[in-house]
């Protein structure tokens, strides 16, 4: 091939990536970097009006955040979602995948789509629906619980149940996505391996524990990482269902950032929250990868 030909190819290649790279640089990379810079300034409503009011204040925003109990409450709530939500979603989606993957199940494709459907629905709309499902007096959920003798629960009005109620909604909304990923992994587990275990007299639990689970361990890790990232990014759920209440018991880190930035116009402090959030996601992901390597999952 001639060198001029290669030159033309390179020119065309650069021209084709240029628009996308420009957009990524302008609307993704630059804002992400600016977030770090902004977090060291006192950018507020006065700076918004006149940039001369902007000052670099070092780590002041971070210092103020770590002494702010409201910030720690938001961090605590988000960590609560990670600690309880990730195992819940992983177990639910794996159980759903095992059910759909069962050899004797009929109309598999129908159930697969049905269980996946909540994931594609509009979050805001289904959050509104769940608000009414969780209604203390007229909600279907309390009605169902009443049938088995449970007294009505004020799900979203009580600080000790509001987080849990939101988590149930989040799990309902998101488990289908992970179920699809688990299904793909389960279909790659060789059937004869399981058959051999069956012949050796292993029961269903033993076959799952010693044959299936080791084979899909990397997928469990993948799903856990994806779910952790998802739990750190909860925003619309508390925004629509509880507006952060009652008594700020459902304020997540992202909700806190939104309030700092667009309610109080403390963009410097909000950027510091964003950066802490990013560091948390990164740290948890790295820890998970490390643990997975140690136990030999990847």
């Amino acid at each position: 091939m001639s060198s001029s030909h290669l030159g033309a190819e390179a020119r065309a290649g650069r021209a084709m990536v240029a628009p996308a790279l420009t957009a990524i640089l302008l609307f993704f990379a630059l804002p992400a970097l600016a977030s770090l810079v902004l977090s060291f300034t006192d950018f507020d409503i006065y700076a918004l009006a006149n940039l001369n009011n902007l000052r670099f204040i070092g780590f002041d925003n971070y210092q103020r955040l770590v002494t702010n109990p409201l910030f720690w409450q938001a961090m605590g709530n988000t960590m609560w979602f990670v600690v309880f939500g990730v195992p819940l979603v992983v177990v639910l989606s794996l159980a759903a995948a095992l059910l759909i993957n069962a050899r004797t199940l009929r109309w598999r494709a129908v159930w697969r789509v049905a269980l996946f459907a909540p994931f594609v629905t509009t979050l805001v709309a289904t959050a509104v629906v769940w608000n009414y499902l969780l209604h203390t007096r007229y909600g279907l959920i309390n009605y169902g619980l009443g049938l088995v003798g449970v007294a009505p629960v004020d799900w979203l009005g009580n600080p000790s149940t509001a987080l849990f109620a939101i988590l149930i909604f989040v799990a309902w909304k998101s488990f289908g996505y992970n179920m699809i990923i688990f299904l793909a992994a389960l279909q790659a587990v060789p059937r004869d391996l399981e058959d051999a275990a069956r012949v050796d007299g292993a029961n269903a639990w033993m076959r799952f524990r010693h044959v299936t689970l080791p084979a899909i361990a990397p997928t469990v890790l993948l799903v856990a990482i994806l779910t952790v990232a998802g739990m750190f990014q909860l925003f619309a759920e508390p925004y629509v269902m509880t507006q952060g209440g009652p008594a700020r018991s459902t304020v997540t880190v992202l909700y806190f950032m939104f309030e700092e930035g667009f309610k109080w116009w403390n963009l410097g402090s909000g950027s510091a929250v964003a950066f802490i959030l990013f560091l948390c996601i990164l740290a948890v992901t790295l820890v998970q990868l490390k643990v997975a390597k140690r136990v030999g999952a990847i």
Partner: protein
Amino acid sequence: MIRRNALTGFAALVALLVLMPLIWMVSVSFMAPGEAAAFPPPLFPNHPTLDNYRTLFGSYGVGRYVVNSIIVSSLATLLALLFVVPAGFAFAKLRFKGRDAIFQILVAALVIPGQIGMLPLFLELKAMGLVNSYAGALVPWLAGIFGIFLVRQFCLSIPTELLEAARIDGASEGLILRRIVLPTLKPILITLALFVFLGSWNDFMWPLIVLADQNLYTLPVALAALSREHVQDNELMMAGSVITVVPVLILFLALQRHYLDGLLAGSVKG
């Protein structure tokens, strides 16, 4: 045989339970105002009515929000494809300096959630005069790293000899992309279009931030605002939820194979 039926019956029960909120949403949307606020909660409307839908379109101007959502999602899809497809092809098949290094940086950047830069992005768009416009709501969809990744993955399977043959015949790279590559990309283009359309239709946080003018609200933003004012109007809000959810559900059901295949290509290989 009995085992088989029992398992299928159990799956049907689970599916019914999972779909219950959506079924209930549709059912209540046809109830008369106040009908759902009763104990025990009614499952089906006594006299099905379209009144809630009439009220939403007549008194609350929901038609406007439907149009906004359609405009934003269609443009986001079109622009995302225009930006992402050539880039994905070039990263897979065209040799230029720095290509692999740039691509590696992009893949690493996938771990950075978009929300990290939302506050500065708002300031940036404010400076560009794009806050409070459709353009402002569209901007994040132009920077779709995931889409580039997806298209590149698919392009890698196109035989290079095919492209070489066209080059020897004197075809330009742009012509090769249009005439040879695009037709083979059709399945992944449908997947990508579906992802962007559903993603931008369902998106909430960014349009909430960037669209302050009520006339520009997309459906989720309008619905969230309405639900704060109409906490008691159960039936009305269910109709609003139906209007918001049904278009994406239909799109998904019609193109589910493309959606699920793309989801796996993105997450498992990624």
